């Protein structure tokens, strides 16, 4: 257990380091992305997803790791996503980046962290109701894109990569 805690801490330190160097922890960058003025966040996020998907699927094919696929529940994902976006736009940080923002001195992240604790407490109260309603709407189970299409992930990943790189070129051309 203690080893797990140390692994968690070290992994978090590395991740936080790169978040800070990429300027991802800034309110101005996050709101800049939502206002479609500055795509820094998307460049960071999509590059991380590309590297992550290639690396993890490679390791999976070698039998070294297991995927962690969450159930797709349309009700929860769509309604939760809309609510999350509203809160994100007001706060300007997401849960992990609030913590990181405080680390680089942008201490308005603390208000966000306190709000999130309150939000988590309220959700814990609302959970029995959500479980009976929203979380039963459109439960598709543990699906993946290659799974639905019935094709290899080594077709989906390069196509996704191509689309993302195209998007990056467009961002750079538009100086976003």
């Amino acid at each position, binding site marked *: 257990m203690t080893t797990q805690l140390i*692994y*968690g801490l*070290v*992994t*978090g*330190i*590395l*991740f936080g380091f*790169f978040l*800070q*160097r990429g*300027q*991802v922890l*800034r*309110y101005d960058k996050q709101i*800049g992305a939502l206002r479609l003025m500055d795509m*820094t966040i998307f460049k*960071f996020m999509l*590059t*991380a997803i590309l*590297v*992550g998907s290639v*690396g993890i699927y490679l390791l999976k094919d070698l039998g070294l*790791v*297991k995927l*962690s696929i969450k*159930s797709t529940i349309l009700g929860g*994902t769509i*309604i*939760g996503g809309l*609510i*999350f976006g*509203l*809160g*994100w736009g*007001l*706060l*300007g940080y*997401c*849960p992990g980046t609030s*913590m*990181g923002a*405080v*680390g*680089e001195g*942008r201490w*308005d992240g603390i*208000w966000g*962290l*306190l*709000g999130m604790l*309150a*939000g*988590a*407490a309220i*959700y*814990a109260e*609302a959970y*029995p109701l*959500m479980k009976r309603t929203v979380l039963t709407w459109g439960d598709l189970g543990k699906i993946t894109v290659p799974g639905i299409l019935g094709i290899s992930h080594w077709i989906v990943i390069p196509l996704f990569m191509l689309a993302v790189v195209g998007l990056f070129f467009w961002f750079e051309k538009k100086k976003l």
Partner: protein
Amino acid sequence: MEKLGEKKYWSPYLAGACAGLVLVLSVWFTGKYFGASTSFVRSVGLLENAISPERVSQMDYFIKTTPKIEWQWMFVFGIFIGSLLASRLSGTFKMQAVPEMWRNRFGPRISTRAIVAFLGGLVAMFGARLAGG
């Protein structure tokens, strides 16, 4: 030429690729994928446990998500340390109560920012939990 370690900020592509690599190594060595929201549930559960452990022990959500400090909680705390380190080393650490873009639009009042940020955090966390994030 400036060394990478001394550069104030990196290209978001490079920083993102490094973050992706950290994720791959984490999944490889410990089987852990990244997340943050669950730790807020565990934290508030620990706080509520201090007030009323009987109540917490009967709540569905805290039965599903045990209030305790585990891998992800330390990961989220690590983000704070990593950001502190990176900003100190590059000289970009700056105590700031109100972000520039906010200040330009809504003024420098700390209380206004505090109220909106708190509400934003509350709403965002509720949504994230509902969406399973």
